[in-house]
């Protein structure tokens, strides 16, 4: 044994080996995004109901309102973040093969980012025009 090992305190040896201070990160993010989704999803449902029979011009005017474009982007991004966290837990719980689990976790996270990017770009395209 090297002398450096003997000189380290019990706390020093334990640091970095556990989930201390980081273990609640996933739990917290899931709840924080859930709280955000309460008003956002209700706003989204009411908005979509209002747009049910909207023609293209009406939709473009609605998305063109900066507040609507902002809230719509926020809804989409919060939903994708929340979905990624949730799907991650479901995969971790039910998929036991390490290779398949790793593949699905990576693919679902990539899908969440891809869909989030695609939806925000779509929202901006409609809102700004071009």
């Amino acid at each position, binding site marked *: 044994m090297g002398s450096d090992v003997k000189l380290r305190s019990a706390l020093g040896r334990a640091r970095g080996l556990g989930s201390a201070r980081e273990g609640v990160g996933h739990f917290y993010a899931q709840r924080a995004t859930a709280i955000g989704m309460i008003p956002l999803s*209700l706003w989204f449902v009411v908005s979509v109901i209002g747009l049910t029979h909207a023609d*293209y011009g009406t*939709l473009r005017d609605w998305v063109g309102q900066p507040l609507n474009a902002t809230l719509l982007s926020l809804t*989409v991004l919060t939903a994708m973040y929340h979905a990624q966290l949730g799907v991650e837990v479901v995969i971790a719980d039910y998929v036991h093969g390490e290779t398949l689990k790793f593949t699905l976790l990576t693919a679902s996270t990539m899908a969440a980012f891809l869909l989030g990017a695609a*939806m925000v770009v779509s*929202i901006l395209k*409609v809102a700004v025009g071009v």
Partner: protein
Amino acid sequence: MTKRDRPLSPHLQIYKMPFTAVLSISHRITGVVMAVGTLVLAYWLAAAAYGPDAYATAQAVLGSVPGRLLLFGWSVALFYHLCNGIRHMFWDAGMGFEIRDAVKSGYITVGAALALTILAWAIGV
């Protein structure tokens, strides 16, 4: 040793899940359904981004009977997951852990989800 007829429970093929367990797995199922269902939202937004023709097609697809059924299922999943998520938050705050309370909050959750779904479609149609 004598062979005794001891109950085998939970025996998954014949196990009658308690009400609270059905609600629990439903939370996950509706969550995954919505995660996959985000593809529909992405399609609708992308169609709007591609212009009036693509948007008209998307409106026709989603306004058709299968499209409306899909959206109805989507809305059920959303409202159930929303209400049950709020139920989860009470648990996170340390409230409602007694079985009687969990059953009661379960009924409230299902009732609220049904009411919100009916309300949304009554206004939306």
